[in-house]
Every structure is written in C-alpha cells, then in structure tokens.
C-alpha cells in the first residue's frame, strides 16, 4: 500500500568519514580539520560543482551528504516540486557567524554574510538538485527522530511530495556531523527499512558509537 514510507537510503558524514547505507565509502586523516576534510571529500566524489568553493563549511557538509545520499537513486518523476527537505541542527550557522563577524571589524564580507543562516544549506541543495518542494529548518538540542517522523509523515499526507530528504546537519567547528535520510512512499521489504523513529534513532546512534 502506498501509505508506507521507506528509508530508501541514508548518508552519514562525521569523524572525517563518509558512509552510505552503513557502508564506509571514504576515510580521511583522523586529525585533519573540517576545511581539509570537506575539500578532500569533494574531490574524492568528483562532485565537479565550482560553486562549492564559495560555500561555507555547513553548506559544504550538506552538499556532500546530499550528493552521496542521492547518487544512484532513481526516481520515477523529475518533478521539482515532488521533493521536500526538512533539516535540523543545534548550532544554527554559528561557525560562519563567527567568521563573518571577524570581518566586520574591517570590512564586512557579503560572501560570508549570506551564509549566516542555517537554512541556506537547504537553499544550496535545492539549487544544485533543482528541488522546489516544501522545506523547513528546525533548531533542536539534538537529533529529534520523533519530531522528524511526525513532521515528514504530515508532509507526505498533506502536500504533493513523493519523497523527502530529512535529517541533521550540524557544524560546530571541526566537530561536525551530518546524517541525511531519503524517505519515499514505497512498500517496505523488511521492518528495518520502515520510516519510524526507532529506525532513525537506531541508524543515528549505532553509527555514532553512542547508545
């Protein structure tokens, strides 16, 4: 029944590693900072999108996570309004806020200022992949699987979306973390694939080494 929603895929970027659906696909030097890691991941995945270089680290993180999430996924329709995006984090755009504010003492940088809002991550993902569906950005202390499942289920029920990218993209300096889920209206083959808060938490906490 098309009432079911499935976790079709998930990508995780943290601790200088990138994984898709639980399998490690890229690992970088453990003590490298976020700047170096994000550039290395960009080159590793041959993303070939020059605008990447102008983005702040939060957006770079989001783009890499989205790129990995969506690679090799096939959709029946390319309808731009069919994809919703619901992201969240705890630190808003703090990393860039600080960098921007440092420039204010001399001459304020417009290129940094435009990134002093967390939802610009959604903007950049939308631009790159041409998504025009509903999008929202929430601030929580930590990843809130309960809220995410409720909110996204409601989007499926009340708007025209066929799929939703949801998750957590946070970058307090070098201690970054991104986990994106691709949710689609589909029959699930097994219980672990069902879009439930238990499954989201399971994926988030198990891969984190947190329990």
């Amino acid at each position, binding site marked *: 029944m098309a009432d079911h929603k499935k976790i079709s895929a998930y990508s995780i970027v943290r601790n200088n590693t990138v994984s898709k659906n639980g399998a490690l696909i890229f690992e970088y030097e453990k003590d490298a900072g976020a700047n170096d890691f994000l550039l290395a991941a960009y080159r590793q995945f041959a993303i070939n999108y020059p605008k990447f270089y102008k983005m702040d680290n939060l957006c770079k993180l989001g783009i890499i996570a989205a790129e990995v999430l969506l690679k090799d996924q096939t959709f029946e329709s390319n309808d731009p309004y069919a994809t919703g995006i619901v992201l969240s984090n705890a630190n808003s755009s703090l990393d860039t806020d600080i960098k*921007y504010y440092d420039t*204010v003492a001399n001459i304020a940088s417009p290129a940094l200022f435009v990134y002093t809002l967390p939802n610009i991550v959604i903007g950049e993902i939308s631009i790159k992949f041409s998504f*025009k569906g*509903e999008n929202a950005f929430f*601030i929580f202390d930590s990843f809130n699987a309960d809220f995410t499942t409720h909110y996204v289920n409601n989007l499926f029920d009340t708007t025209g979306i066929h799929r939703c990218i949801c998750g957590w993209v946070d970058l307090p300096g070098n201690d970054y973390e991104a986990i994106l889920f691709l949710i689609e209206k589909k029959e699930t083959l097994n219980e672990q694939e069902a879009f439930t808060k238990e499954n989201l938490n399971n994926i988030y906490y198990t891969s984190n080494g947190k329990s």
Partner: protein
Amino acid sequence: MSNAVFVAGAGIISAIGNNVAENLHALETGTPGMSKITLLDSAHKETLPVAEVKRTNEQLAAITGLPAHITRTALLSLVAAKEAINDANINIQGLRTGFISANSVGGMDKTENFYAQFLSDKNAGRLRNVINHECGRPAEIVADALGIKHFVTTISTACSSSANAIFLGARMIRQNMLDVVIAGGVDALTKFTLNGFNSLMILDNEFCKPFDENRKGLNLGEGAGYIVMVSEKVAATLKTKMYCTLSGWCNANDAYHQTASSPGGTGSLLAMKGALQKAGLSANDIDYINLHGTGTQNNDIAEGTAISTLFAPRYPKMSSTKSFTGHTLGASGGVEAVFSALSVKHGLIYPNLRFHTQMKELSFAPETKFLKEQSIKHVMSNSFGFGGNCSSLIFSGV
C-alpha cells in the same frame, strides 16, 4: 471533525507601537517607525535609517519581569507573546499548548558586544552575556516565563521563519497533537545584521519605498508578533470572538540563489498558488495581500511578477506594511500575520507609504490610503526568505 484552525488572540511590538492598539493607530495615521539609529553603537549611525522599538531593554525588563541584562530578543518576544495570550483569554491549564517561535539572531545583541571586549582582553566581558546566544534560547526563555512546557521549538529560515512557525502550529492542531499554539517570531536589531545587509548593498539610506519604481532598498526593523491559534473544540469553549481562521498555507523553494529571488518569482508563485489550493480558494477570492514588499529592487519585481502571473487581470488591494515597521526579518511573518488577522477582523486595508511611481514592469500599484469598513473575507500574507524559502499564509473570516 472540522479542520478549522482559529486565531483567538494576537500580540505585537514593533517600531510603530508597543501593543496592538498602538500599531493600529500608527497604521491609521500613516506614522512610520523609521528614524536614525539610537540603540546601537554603529558606524552607520548617521547614514542608515532603522525601525527601532521605542523601548530600552530596561523598560522591556520592567514590563516583562525578565532581567534587564538578558538578550533583547527574549524581551521583545515575551512582550508580544504575553499580549497574545492575554488577548485570547484562555486558561491553558490542562490544554496541550505549544510555543513555536522563530528568529534569526538569537542572543546576538549581547554576544557581539561581549565578543568585541573579549577579543581585546581575554578577561573582559561577562559570560552571562553569551549563554543565551543560541538561536533556540529566546523561545526557551519565553516558554519558561509563560509556563509552556508541552512543546517548544524554534524555526530559523530567515525572513519566512515566523510564517513557517505559524503554519507548523496550525498543522499540529489539525493533527490533534496540540490544542493551543502561540506561534510567530521575533528579531532584535544588531550590528551583525546591519553590517551584513549593508555589505549586500540592499539598504536604503532613506525611508524605504516598497513597490515603487525608484525604490532603493530596505530599512531594517525589529520587533515581535504572535498569534494564538486554537482547535475548533477549544474555540467553542471561549467567550471572546475569534479573529479569523488560518485557512491556507504553503512553502516552496525558489532554488535559484542563496539570497536573490528568481526574476519570475518562481518560489513566491508556488507558495501563493499552493496556499490558495490548500484553502480551497481561487485568486479572485483574495481581498487584500499583505506583501513581503521589502523595497529592494530584486524582491519587489520578483514578487510583483509572481502576483501578475497569478492574479491578472483582477488585482486585490495590496500593500507592504514594511513601509511602516521596516523589515523585521525573523519577526516579519509574525508581525504581518497579526496585521492580516486584524484586517479580517476589523475590515481594514493598510496603506503602502511613500509610493509615488508604479513599477514599469507591472500593471498594478499598491494601495496608498488606510481604508476601514471594508468587506474582507480572505487575506493573503507573503513572507519570502533568504535561501529561497518562500511562504504564503491565508487568513479567512469566520
């Protein structure tokens, strides 16, 4: 079971008034809130007009009972949220109540002063001025003060933030997750935002002229606006007359640029169309549009083009109240929701100040007079944010 979401109360503080009555009076008398900067110690003091709330932090603290050293964002938020709850005259005991607030600056007003002191001397600055920096803190502070525990969250999507907060609240009522929601947003003026917008060269060094051919940019403002929404079940228990319902909403992404709108206003068009669809209305049903109307070259042509596409040849009356309050960023959706609900309740249409010349690309002009005793059944309120985040709300008469 009906799906209706009722607006039971409203609260606001802005550059044109410290409560609903003062705001309405200013709108009626055509009195804008812009002036030279007085509250910030900024290099732009003499050159950039802003729309400040005419209350110091000490005065706001005295009204709210919060400490005077706390972030201005929380102070403004509590003033407006309290007015909204009192206006709705609801006893929230035993009701599942949510507080959904939006902002873009968090506690930045305090942090930026701390940071300057701290940079020059690591022992200078008081830590209490940074503990409330985070975006989510003002909502938590205010929810605590109001005794709301059931559901509290913060949305941060730039200039559409509080519109998004409002329709999230409505959804949660329809989903029977909450009985009462106080939703809207707040933002305080900071040097961070002032310098940032200045670096984008979209500030007007005179009072802004939304939707005018010769517009030169926006004026930053500050303030807070909240509405109280209730389920039909709760509405039936209240003695006060409901303002209106929130009958439609929609959010879409323009997917064009981080801060500029696409020339055709794709995101805006999608949001307005979607809101009409949700409300089960057609463009002809709208009696008044409260425009996003910031006064920048880019927004006004994008929004104007989208309106032409959707409404031509019959245009409802429309105006930008940012010509009074300035652009209150994270608060704008909430502030303008209050004005929209009042428009439906009292049959009002607000003027668009300082409009002289119709934009050459458009075949319509905003309303320049304050009108009352109008027959207003449906009002549309637009809020379009950076990051391509576009939202539109529709308020309908009961």
